[in-house]
C-alpha cells in the first residue's frame, strides 16, 4: 500500500500527517489572528496582497512595463526619451544605411535594440506604440465593462422580480453570442469608421460585461438579505444609496478580482481581433497587427515577431498573477500557507515549547 501523501516518511502515515498539519493550522490561525488584530478589512486584504510574492513580482514588472511603454516614445503631445518616432511610416531611416539588416541589442542597447523591419522602422518604437494601444484597450475595457456589469448585476440582484428576469435574459442573450464573434462584428463596425483604440475598447466593453453582471447579481442576491440592508432601509436610504453605498463595498472583492481577469482577457481579445483584421487597423499599430504584419517574416527576421508577442504575454501574465494574488487576498478562507517544511518546523517548535512548559493549560490551548 503506497501512501502518496506529501510526506510519507513516517510509518504512521496519514494520521500523524494530519495531526501535524492540524497543529500547524492552529498555529497558523493564531499567528494570523494576532497579526490582524484591530485592522480593518481593507488593511487585512492589502497586507495579504503585499505578502503574495507572485502577485507583487507581477505588479512590479507591470509597473515597469507601463512606465517603459508610456514614457519611451511619449504619449500624445508629450514627447518621450526614445530617439525614434513610433508610428510614421517614413520617419525612421536606418542610420547604418542597411534597411533590411537589423541587429538586436545584447548588453549594449544600440540604436535599435529590438531591430528594424524591412522598411527600416524601429521595432522598439512600434512595439511601444502597439503596447500603448493595448494598454488603452485594457484600461478602458476594465473600467467600462466593469461599470456596465456592476450596474446590470446590482440592479437585477437588488430589484429581483421582473426587472431581474428581463436583465438576466438580456445577459443570457449576449452570453449566447461567442465573444470573438460579436467582437469581430463590432470591431469591423468600429474600424470601418476609423481605427481608434478607444472606440474599439468601448465596443469590446459592450461585449465583455456579462460575467461581471452575473457575479455581481449573485453577490447582491445574498447581500440584500443581510441585516445592514434592512437597517439602511429603515433609516430611510433610497434604493440607489443602499445599492451603491451600502452593498457595493461589500461586493468589492469579487468585482476587483473579476476586473483583473477581464483586463487580461481584453488584451488577448484586442490583439486577436487586430490580428484578424477587425480591430485596430493599419496606420495605427497594435501588438496584434504587428504580429499579423510580421508573421510571414518570422523565418528571416524573427525579432519582428518575437517582441510584440512577448509584450502581450508579459502584460497578460502580470495581470493574471495580480488577479490570483487579489483572489487569495480577498478570500477569507484562504490563508497564506507556508511550505510543508516551514509548517513542520513551526509544529516542532510548538511541541518543544509545550513539552517545556507542560502546564495544564495546554489542553485548552490545543482547542
Amino acid at each position, binding site marked *: 500500500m503506497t501512501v502518496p501523501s506529501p510526506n510519507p516518511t513516517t510509518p504512521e502515515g496519514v494520521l500523524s500527517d494530519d495531526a501535524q498539519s492540524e497543529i500547524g493550522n492552529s498555529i497558523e490561525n493564531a499567528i494570523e489572528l494576532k497579526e490582524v488584530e484591530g485592522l480593518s478589512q481593507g488593511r487585512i486584504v492589502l497586507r495579504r496582497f503585499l505578502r503574495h510574492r507572485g502577485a507583487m513580482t507581477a505588479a512590479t514588472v507591470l509597473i515597469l512595463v507601463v512606465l517603459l511603454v508610456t514614457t519611451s516614445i511619449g504619449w500624445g503631445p508629450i514627447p518621450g526619451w526614445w530617439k525614434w518616432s513610433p508610428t510614421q511610416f517614413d520617419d525612421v531611416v536606418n542610420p547604418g544605411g542597411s534597411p533590411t539588416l537589423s541587429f538586436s541589442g545584447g548588453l549594449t542597447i544600440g540604436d535599435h535594440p529590438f531591430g528594424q523591419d524591412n522598411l527600416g522602422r524601429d521595432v522598439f518604437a512600434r512595439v511601444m506604440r502597439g503596447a500603448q494601444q493595448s494598454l488603452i484597450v485594457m484600461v478602458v475595457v476594465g473600467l467600462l465593462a466593469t461599470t456596465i456589469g456592476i450596474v446590470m448585476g446590482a440592479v437585477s440582484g437588488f430589484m429581483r422580480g421582473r426587472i431581474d428576469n428581463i436583465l438576466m435574459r438580456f445577459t443570457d442573450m449576449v452570453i449566447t453570442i461567442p465573444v470573438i*464573434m460579436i467582437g469581430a462584428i463590432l470591431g469591423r463596425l468600429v474600424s470601418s469608421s476609423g481605427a481608434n483604440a478607444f472606440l474599439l475598447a468601448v465596443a469590446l466593453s459592450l461585449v465583455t460585461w456579462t460575467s461581471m453582471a452575473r457575479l455581481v447579481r449573485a453577490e447582491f442576491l445574498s447581500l440584500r438579505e443581510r441585516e445592514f440592508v434592512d437597517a439602511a432601509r429603515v433609516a430611510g436610504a433610497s434604493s440607489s444609496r443602499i445599492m451603491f453605498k451600502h452593498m457595493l463595498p461589500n461586493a468589492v472583492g469579487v468585482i476587483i478580482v473579476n476586473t483583473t481577469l477581464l483586463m487580461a482577457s481584453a488584451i488577448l481579445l484586442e*490583439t486577436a481581433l487586430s490580428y484578424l483584421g477587425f480591430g485596430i487597423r493599419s496606420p495605427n499599430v497594435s501588438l496584434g497587427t504587428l504580429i499579423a504584419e510580421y508573421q510571414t517574416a518570422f523565418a528571416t527576421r524573427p525579432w519582428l515577431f518575437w517582441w510584440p508577442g512577448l509584450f502581450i504575454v508579459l502584460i497578460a501574465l502580470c495581470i493574471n498573477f495580480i488577479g490570483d494574488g487579489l483572489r487569495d487576498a480577498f478570500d477569507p478562507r484562504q490563508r497564506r500557507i507556508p511550505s510543508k517544511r516551514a509548517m513542520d518546523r513551526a509544529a516542532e517548535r510548538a511541541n518543544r515549547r509545550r513539552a517545556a512548559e507542560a502546564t495544564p493549560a495546554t489542553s485548552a490551548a490545543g482547542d
Partner: protein
Amino acid sequence: MATSVTGQAAVEAPEPASATPASPTTPRRRLRASAPILTFLGRRLLSSAIVLVGATFIVYMLLALALDPLEDLRTSTAPNKEALIEARIRDLDLNTPAPVRWAKWLGGVAGCVVGQCDLGDSWVNRQPVTALLGTAIPSTLQLVGAAAFIAVGLGVVVGIASALRQYSGFDYGVTFMAFLLYSLPSFWVAVLLKLWGAIGFNDFLRNPVFSPSTIVLISVIGGLLWQAIVGGPWRRRGITFLVSAAATAAAMAFVSATKWFLDPSLGPVAIGLLGIGAAFAITALAAGLRNRRALYTSLSVALLGALLWWPLQFLFPYATGLMIVLLALVAIGSGVLIGWLFGGPDRRQSMRAGAITAVVVGALIFVDRVMQVWQVYSRSSRVAGRPIATIGAETPGLQGDFWVETLDTFTHLVLPTTALILITFASYTRYSRASLLEVMNQDYIRTARAKGLPERVVTVRHAFRNALIPLATIVPLDIAYLFGGAIITERIFAWSGMGTLFLHSLATSDANPAMGYFIVVGTALVVANIVVDFVYAALDPRIRVNA
C-alpha cells in the same frame, strides 16, 4: 455525455432504467414522477428559445449595421454602376428595414423544426447556407474534437497530479505554466508551432540524429520532470531521476542510431512490452496491484494483443473506418470477457482494467500499422520528405489506401491540435486541481481514511469521482463552443471549417452565412446549458431539478 443520455432516458421512460440488471451502483434516487421534470424541461426549452431568438436579433441588427454589401460597387468604375447597385439592393432586399428582414429570415429558420431548413443563400457564391454549414461543421469537428478530448484528459490528469502534490515544486510549476498558457495569444503560439513544429521537424527529418549534448539535456530535463511528478523523499526522487533519465537517454540513443524517425515502427515485441507496462499502470490505478485477478486480466489482455499482431496484419490491408471501429469494440469486449472469466468477488474491477488495457494495446497496434506507411508516405512525390503539414486538411492529389489517408489526416491535424490543446488545457488543469483540493478537504475523505482504506481507493474512488462533477458542468459548454470552431487557429492553419466560414462571410459582407454560423453555435450552446443542468442534477444528489 453518457449521463445526459441516462437523464433523458429517465425523463422519457423510467421503466427501462429499472429493467437494467440491479447492481449496487444503479441510481437509487429514481426520478419519481416525470411530470415536474417535463415541466422543468419545457420551461427551460421555452426560455432558451426566447433567449436564442433575441440573440439572433441582436446579431442580425449588428451585422446589418456593420456590413455594407454595396461597398465594392460604390468604388467601382463600371459604367452601369447605378444599375448594378439597384440590382443588388433588390437582390438582397436592402430596402426593407432590417427588423423585417430578420423576421423573414427567422421564418426560414423556423422551417428547421419541420425539416425544411432555409437559412438563406450566400450572395457571394450563391450557395445555400445549409450546404456551406454541411461542409464546414464536419471539418471543424474533426479539427477541434480530438483537441478537446485530449485537452480535457490531459488537463484533468495534470490538475489531479498537481493537487495531490499541493505546494510542491511540481504544483508551483504547473500553476505557473497554467498562467503562462492562459496569457499566450493563440495566433502567436500557432505561428511558433508552425515554424518549430513543422519546418523544424521536417528539417530534422533530413538527418534524424540527436547530438549527444541534446540527448543529455533532454534526459536531464525528463529526469527532473519525473522526479517532480513522483515526488517523495530525496532518496526516492534520486532513484526516479536516475532511472527515468537513463531510460530517456537509452530511448533517444536507440532512435537516433537506427534513424527510427525515417521508418518508425513498434513491432509486436515493443507492443507487448508497452502493453505489459500499461497493464501494470492501469491495474495500479483502477484496482490496485494487490488485486491479483485484475493484474492477471490486464497482463493476459496485453499478451493476447501482442500475439494478435500477426493475424491482424493480414486483415489490415482491407481496413475501413468501420472495421477499425468494430475491431475496437471487439477489443473492449474481449477485455471485459477476460476480466469476467478471471472471476473473483469483485469482477467489475478486473473487467474495467481489462477493457482499458485492451483499448491501450489496440491503439498501439493501430499506431504501429499507421507507422508502417510512414516511409511510403513521406517519400511520395506529393509530400516530398516534409510530412508535417502547415496548412489545409489533406495533401491535394495524394493517392493511397486507408492507412495512407489516415496518416495524411494525422500529419495535418497534429499542429492545429497541439495549438488548441496548449491554449485550452490550462483551464482544465486549474479547474480539476481546485475541485480535487476542495473535495480532499471534505469530511467524507477523512472518514474514508479513518476506515483504513488505502490511499489509492480514497483518491480514485472517493475524491476523484466527486472532483469531476464541477468539470462535468464545464465540458458540455466547451463542446458547444467547439461547434463555433477555433476561429484563429482555423485561420492560421487554413482549415476550412466554421471559423473560416464566419471570417470569410464577415470580410465579404455576407450576412446569411454569418447568421448560419451563429444559429449553429447558439443552438449548441443553449442545448449544452440545458444538458449541464440535468447532468449536474444527475451527478450531484444535493441538487434538485424543480420546476
